[in-house]
């Protein structure tokens, strides 16, 4: 470990992970301090999504550990997971609910009061205000992704884990995403983003390059 971890540092400590006896990730280590963005890069199939699911606590490493507030996350999984926003390849949107109801459900899950005005503001920001009452089943790919990202603005969580968040977003959508990230980071949040495209250079960024796929 290079830096002494503070309370709000996420430490990735010599992580190893294998699937079907094939080692996918090995000797991954890095630290992310409050206000920093960790960009995970690498060729297709090198294990970016896998790493992100490890960091979100969905998977457990075969070796090494991830520390949050100086404690391994496997020992405090439920507590730790409450700090997280995860946006994966799938958006996590309920297609039977409308756009607004999806936000409401999200608030309930985060145990936060649902403020219609606030929700409206968030939707406006994401450029979805004109389809507030549309069923999510009828949204386009980019609209779904925007709705998934609206979660980030709606409820405050310290750690954002985003797996190729720019997928299906148009340029305007990408700008909004970058704004969200800037705001989050300046407020001392942590963001871990896997992406093939370049993000805004202005973020305080750490890079993590994963090797070629071993699989």
């Amino acid at each position, binding site marked *: 470990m290079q830096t002494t971890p503070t309370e709000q540092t996420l430490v990735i400590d010599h992580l190893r992970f294998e699937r079907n006896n094939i080692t996918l990730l090995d000797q991954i280590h890095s630290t992310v301090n409050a206000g920093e963005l960790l960009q995970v890069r690498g060729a297709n199939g090198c294990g970016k999504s896998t790493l992100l699911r490890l960091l979100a606590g*969905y998977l457990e490493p075969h070796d090494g550990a991830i520390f949050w507030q100086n404690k391994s996350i496997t020992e405090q999984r439920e507590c730790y997971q409450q700090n997280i926003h995860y946006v994966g390849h*799938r958006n996590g949107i309920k297609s039977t609910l409308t756009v607004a109801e999806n936000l409401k459900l*999200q608030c309930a*899950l985060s145990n936060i009061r649902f403020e219609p005005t606030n929700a409206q503001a968030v939707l406006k920001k994401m450029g979805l205000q004109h389809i507030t009452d549309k069923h999510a089943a009828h949204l386009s790919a980019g609209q779904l992704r925007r709705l998934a990202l609206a979660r980030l603005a709606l409820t405050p969580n310290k750690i954002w884990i985003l797996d190729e968040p720019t997928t299906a977003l148009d340029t305007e959508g990408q700008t909004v995403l970058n704004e969200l990230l800037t705001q989050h980071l300046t407020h001392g949040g942590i963001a871990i983003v896997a992406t093939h495209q370049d993000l805004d250079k202005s973020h305080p960024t750490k890079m993590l390059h994963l090797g070629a796929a071993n699989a």
Partner: protein
Amino acid sequence: MLKSLLTITHQEIVMTLRQAYSWITPLLFFVIVVCLFPLALGPDENTLNKVAPGIIWVGALLAIVMSIGNIFRSDAEEGHLDLLLLSAHPLTLLVLCKLISHWITHCLPLIVISPLLGILLHLNIHEESVLVISLLLGTPVFVLLGAIGSALVVGIRSHGLLLPILIMPLYIPVLIFGTGSMIAASANLPLASDFAMMGALVLISLAFAPLLTSAALRIGANQ
């Protein structure tokens, strides 16, 4: 906390009611399956009468088995399950909310309509009331045990009939006591013991099922 949980339950019910077919189809399925039997069994009215409790119970069992399989499916496919795991509430409580709303939307209608089918199969008043009570006691167990199975298969895509064969064996005790109570009713024998047994099954499964279900869901996310 309670308020959020109520919102979640409410939202679940809204989702189901909005997709009318998701609660109407199990109901119709129940009716059609029950109607299949007289057609398949042939002419003997006496036999039909004898097997009526069995038919209704098996029909309800199948309708519930088939509908419970979808309780986490759309969540998993849409990636919503990932979010449930990150929720501020304990997963067990979230699961309980989902199960309660599932029971209200999927099992209550079955119970309400079952006396009608009873008429078609010539049950008398006493048998009808026993039927309703035994279904009220039996269906929660079906839902609770079914949820465990559903959660176990959640990571597997197109699991087909894996779920029914996992959980139907667990349903057998309920089935035996449920039909047992009806057979006893038609012979005017006391029922209390059957009902007591079913009550016990409800409580036991209520105690363990949500816990096991949430554990299984975490495992499912591990894939």
